[in-house]
């Protein structure tokens, strides 16, 4: 799955996802990636977030919406993503997943569970190439 957030020079935000889902799923199953608030969410006044991992578990907690709302209340992108991950891990301590967030000022952060580390990619004005950031998971 890819989840992506873009913030342009005018302060406008967009988010998108694309996936082919989990292997050997039951036909008809829908992933979190297609669901607004779960796979991704964005609000021009706050920022955006997107999620990746075990979508059957993650979509129950609407983590992207929760992350944006946490940023609206003043959390940093990293803190906001961590809040969403912790809410899921409380019920599913072994779940695999990550949440990535970008605020309206261009600050980014992520949190994850069930992996050693989670890599994400960033490209911004003034850079010649994207950079990979890796964060340790819970």
């Amino acid at each position, binding site marked *: 799955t890819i989840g*992506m957030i873009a913030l342009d020079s005018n302060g406008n*935000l967009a988010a998108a996802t694309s996936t*082919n889902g989990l292997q050997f799923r039951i036909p008809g199953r829908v992933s979190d990636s297609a669901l*607004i608030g779960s796979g991704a969410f964005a609000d021009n006044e706050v920022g955006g977030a997107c999620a990746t991992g075990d979508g059957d578990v993650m979509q129950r907690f609407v983590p992207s919406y929760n992350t944006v709302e946490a940023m609206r209340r003043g959390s940093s992108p990293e803190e906001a993503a961590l809040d969403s991950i912790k809410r899921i891990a409380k019920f599913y301590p072994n779940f695999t997943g990550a949440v990535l967030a970008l605020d309206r000022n261009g600050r980014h952060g992520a949190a994850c569970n069930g992996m050693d580390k989670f890599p994400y990619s960033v490209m911004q004005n003034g850079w010649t190439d994207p950079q990979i950031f890796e964060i340790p998971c819970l």
Partner: protein
Amino acid sequence: SDSLPIVVNTWPFVNATRNAFNKMQNQGGTCVDGVEVGCRTCEDEQCDGSVGWGGHPDESSETTLDSLIIDAKTMSVGAVANLHRIKNAVGVARAVMNYTRHSILVGESATKFALDMGFEQTDLHSNQSIEQWKNWLDNLSCQPNFRRNVSPDPSKSCGPYTPDKFGTTSFDIETKKRPIKEHD
């Protein structure tokens, strides 16, 4: 901010990041154009096997696609789920946003919508996905799978399955560890 425009995406899919950024910075695209191009890049490159055609077959061997796009300036949204036989899922999601008042279309009806909107229909199987599915079916007795509380025992057998009349209905909260590249 001096850092704008900026693009971030899950996993180290740098070509997607670069193409999204270039769309905004060098080609006059909007942020919506940027995320569409970025996700389309991964669909074409079949990023780590978890995006695009030819990966992660379902129980019946078919690859289906899910996608979502959000324009936060207008809170316009388009999404597709369980999309069959169309490679450009994020393009169809954007078409849902641009050409309908709905938020999400699913299944064969989403495919029909995509065809009406001019998208090309094509087989999403790959040699690899067919091999993976055959191995799962023939050599691994359909393990792992997502069934529970059914008969025959889904931890040992393939279907077809029916509700387990003799067992209790359990809802364990344990999630099975899955390969790192198998994610939504």
